[in-house]
């Protein structure tokens, strides 16, 4: 089997898959049945899928989400998005070099009448919020249709291998994201009144109150009374020199490749952005056996949860706060990244540059709601609601809860219920989406006797599994029942359930009962491919990754027990036992700045703003400096935004250029958005029936 496959994973089961054959530019290669073309290529270490007709630049994966067309390949003669097209046995796949040819037809298309379907509610997006809303709608037996562009329901939950925060009662806290996705999907599938279309993309809400949907390759028109926009968010991109080399893409794309398709797209990864998305992607990389060379965050502190940042630091990943990425280096693909410290005005400080060898750079610099369906519905005059990230960027736990509230609101709107939503729900919804609080010190009231949990959770975040699971109710939450900091008070049985359940891996158990001078510390661990055995000496670290010395492993729990969180027991030293949280697994050498790398490779000074049409920041700046303030005129002249993605990436980057030039955005004319959401073959609109994978 191919080398770039994930063969074992601490959380995900690696299924046995039939092997098939395909051809890449005439080379015979192996792949797994039912996987998308892009993942088969990555598994075969192919990162470059073609070259752009404008400037010959290397093209490859970017969104892994069907939104752009950077991953286009020719499959059996037809240009397709490799991230959305299933590979077939003996498929002939070719790179796109310049403009592709439109093949002649073997037989004339068979055109059928386009079906129009009426529905009470159309939910666009089968992720946490859409599914939660559907569950509420089903309580009233409301005729509902969920459309989702992926083959499985669950949205981004499917990609989340970590245990969730939030509250146990309302959002499955302590359960892993992918398991929550399955639970919600199963529940929704059990309702007769909810129709589910997977592999189906909503294209546009037209002004005649009809929604065009491409359902598994066939065009359908849906007429809903109410629309719920639960289409989630898209990732923002960043402008820096060399930002278009192959191997630079979003954290979401990375999670798709790793956690859905079980391929290893990288060996050495560098992450830009210390929000939860970047931090979690780093952790997922380690779990998949991929090295994380480092992570930069422009702010003085990571914006994501401290527990997520700490998890990375403890395992040996350096986090460079107040740093930015200056440049990606490489011929066609990334071979190194150059970063620098920045001042308080976010300007790089000379002399602080560091270069690291890496083969992939993940961009995790924030998300923005996919708001267009709601805007279109409003224009058309269809009653529309939004939930989840499409409404407001927050954690999935928040998305589930506000999806539930929105479901009830829709049922009310349609007159199925007069149920009032209690005020306390809105308060809870506010709590679940709250930003992480400030970081507090440890409380120094530990007896250092007997057995007790040490709670290393020092930042208020919406999370409560530890207090819910303790059999003696001895873990309590100070202040707000969800966001307050947990503390231990009472009687500990030494069961270590709190250690295993904590999503932040921030609780340890210290047991003095056998040896008061050398207590046994129980540590949570989730990285299977770096195997820990009894007798190993581990370089133990405190909560933030500071080294506390070497200690020997005396017991390792079974991997399958405790929901895939291994419990590692070490024999520690009384003085330090309460501070030990984890241990290093990644070698320092990986994250040592390279001095030579920068000179070895061709330096690409281009900062690209429109990847589809290859428009540079320089070209756009020239127009802004001529006094142009209409994004539509910039588009007309440069083509920025005219590509397949429809300005989903460049819009933000160009707006940043205006801000940089001191032009307030209120003086800038917005880009006009037009149908369709993704590119669809012309024949489908004429009623050609064909699965996208035929």
């Amino acid at each position: 089997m191919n080398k770039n496959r994930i063969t074992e994973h601490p959380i995900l089961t690696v299924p046995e898959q039939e092997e098939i054959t395909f051809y890449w530019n005439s080379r015979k290669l192996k792949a797994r049945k039912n996987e998308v073309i892009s993942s088969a290529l990555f598994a075969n270490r192919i990162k470059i899928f073609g070259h752009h007709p404008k400037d010959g630049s290397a093209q490859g994966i970017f969104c892994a989400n069907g939104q752009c067309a950077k991953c286009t390949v020719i499959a059996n003669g037809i240009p397709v998005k490799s991230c959305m097209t299933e590979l077939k046995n003996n498929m002939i796949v070719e790179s796109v070099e310049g403009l592709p040819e439109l093949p002649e037809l073997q037989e004339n298309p068979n055109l059928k009448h386009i079906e129009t379907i009426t529905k009470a509610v159309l939910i666009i997006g089968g992720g946490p919020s859409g599914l939660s809303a559907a569950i509420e709608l089903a309580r009233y037996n409301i005729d509902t249709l969920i459309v989702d562009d992926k083959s499985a329901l669950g949205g981004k939950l499917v990609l989340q291998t970590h245990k969730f925060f939030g509250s146990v009662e309302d959002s499955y806290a302590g359960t892993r994201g992918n398991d929550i996705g399955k639970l919600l999907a199963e529940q929704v599938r059990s309702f007769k009144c909810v129709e589910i279309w997977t592999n189906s993309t909503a294209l546009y809400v037209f002004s005649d109150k009809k929604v065009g949907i491409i359902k598994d390759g066939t065009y359908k028109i849906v007429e809903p009374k109410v629309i719920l926009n639960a289409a989630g968010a898209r990732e923002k991109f960043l402008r820096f020199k060399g930002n278009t080399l192959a191997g630079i893409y979003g954290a979401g794309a990375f999670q798709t490749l790793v956690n859905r398709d079980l391929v290893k797209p990288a060996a050495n990864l560098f992450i830009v952005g210390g929000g939860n998305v970047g931090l979690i992607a780093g952790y997922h990389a380690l779990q998949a056996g991929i090295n994380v060379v480092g992570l930069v965050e422009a702010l003085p502190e990571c914006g994501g949860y401290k527990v997520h940042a700490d998890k990375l630091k403890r395992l040996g990943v350096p986090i460079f706060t107040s740093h930015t990425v200056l440049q990606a280096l490489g011929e066609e693909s990334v071979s190194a990244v150059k970063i620098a410290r920045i001042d308080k005005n976010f300007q790089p400080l000379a002399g602080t540059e560091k270069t690291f060898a890496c083969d992939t750079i993940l961009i995790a610099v924030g998300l923005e709601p996919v708001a267009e369906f709601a805007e279109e519905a409003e224009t058309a005059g269809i009653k529309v609601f939004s939930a989840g990230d499409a409404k407001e960027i927050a954690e999935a736990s928040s998305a589930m809860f506000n999806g539930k509230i929105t479901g009830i609101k829709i049922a009310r709107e349609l007159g199925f219920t007069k149920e009032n939503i209690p005020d306390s729900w809105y308060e809870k919804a506010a709590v679940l989406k709250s930003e992480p609080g400030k970081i507090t010190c440890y409380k120094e009231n530990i007896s250092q006797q007997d057995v007790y949990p040490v709670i290393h959770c020092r930042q208020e975040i919406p999370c409560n599994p530890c207090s819910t699971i303790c059999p003696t109710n001895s873990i309590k939450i100070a202040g707000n029942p969800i966001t307050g900091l947990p503390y231990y008070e009472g009687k500990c049985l030494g069961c270590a359930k709190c250690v295993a359940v904590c999503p932040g891996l921030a609780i340890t158990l210290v047991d003095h009962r056998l040896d008061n001078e050398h207590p046994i510390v129980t540590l949570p661990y989730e990285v299977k491919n770096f195997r820990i055995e009894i007798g190993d000496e581990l370089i133990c670290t405190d909560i933030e990754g500071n080294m506390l010395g070497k200690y020997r492993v005396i017991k390792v729990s079974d991997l399958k027990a405790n929901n895939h969180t291994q419990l590692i027991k070490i024999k520690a030293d009384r003085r330090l036992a309460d501070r030990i949280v984890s241990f290093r697994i990644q070698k320092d050498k990986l994250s040592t700045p390279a001095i030579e790398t920068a000179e070895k490779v061709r330096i690409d000074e281009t900062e690209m703003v429109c990847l589809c049409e290859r428009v540079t920041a320089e070209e756009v700046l020239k127009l802004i400096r001529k006094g142009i303030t209409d994004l539509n005129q910039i588009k007309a002249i440069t083509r920025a935004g005219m590509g397949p993605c429809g300005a989903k990436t460049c819009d933000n980057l160009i707006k940043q250029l205006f801000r940089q030039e001191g032009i307030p955005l209120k003086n800038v004319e917005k880009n006009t958005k037009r149908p369709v959401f993704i590119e669809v073959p012309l024949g489908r609109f004429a009623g050609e029936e064909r699965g996208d994978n035929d």
Partner: protein
Amino acid sequence: MIKNYDVIIIGAGSIGVPAALAIAQKKLKVLVIDSLSSPGQANNKKAIGGIRATHSDYGKVKTCLRSIEIFSSWKDLYGDDIGWMSNGYSFPVYNESDEKNLKELMKIQHSFGLKIKWITAEEYNELVPGINTENLKGSSYSWEDGSASPLLALNAFYFKSLEFGAEYSFQETVLELKPEKVDSFAIVTNKNHYHTRYIINAAGNYAREIGALLNIDLPVYPDNHEAGITEPVKRFFQPMVVDMRKRPGSANYYFYQNNEGQVVFCITPDPPITGIDNDATSEFLPLCSGRMIEIYPRLSNLKVRRTWRGQYPMTPDGFPVVGPAPEYPNFINAVGMCGQGFMLGPGLGEILARIVTSELNEADEKILKNFDLQRDFSGMEKFK
């Protein structure tokens, strides 16, 4: 403060911008006022870019021949690529009556010296490989017609006009037009007061409203058309393909592969959808793709990238209204382009410049006669 101009043009679109260029080149002080934020933001950017001289009347033929000269020489003259291609126009016909009509029309076109010929179904299949040849009688082919990018061309005209001193004011709406002496006007907008010797009404969709400010009744009524564009692929067919047959819901439709390799297409709803409404409907894509695939099945795998809706400012007979208004000789209309503003613009721009400098020649006078406001509007264009 009141600002003074020789000419104020209302509308920075397909007509206003090339007119401003031609007038500025004559060293007159010209201002273009537009209510939108930049040039070409109304119907110019909605145009699909076809440019032909093969019309049926002297006015359009001569104007477009001059436009083609301007479009086709622009790059050599000024260096900017405006996407000009001499890819030709074709009207394939699938029944005898259309064949007869088209051949009649070609006689008139030949009398104007236009380069157009009849080609057989086999010859047509070479130009448009894979075209449906079942019942195909043949096609007209006018190889000197072509296409350009409306976006690039208009911006090229705009920047060139700035170099020659033309001024523009965007996000500005004209509220009042006041005739002063015999040969001047005051203009009141939401932002300014102006004096000008000439006004050119190039307000596209809003031409009628602008005329009404001087109690001039202009028979210009916009109707809605939708268009779309695909992903780019290697060039696989040459000319603009115009299918002029009628079907339930639509009249003619047309498509071509532009300079970027993208297929651009547009359909004429039947009956017309009057008014100004830029919001996309669910009708357009199935209607247009069905007809395109019937005539050219090969297009079925080509991915649609974007669609949009725009207007044809129509007159009752399908011909524009251009020239000084009878009551106010210094108020010049250049309106009712009926969806052909982009191809008429550069040629008309020069004529408009010659009106304000009193340099009209014999040919100009003849063209303007065809576009006269006081004509009998009951005649219909032979083939649109």
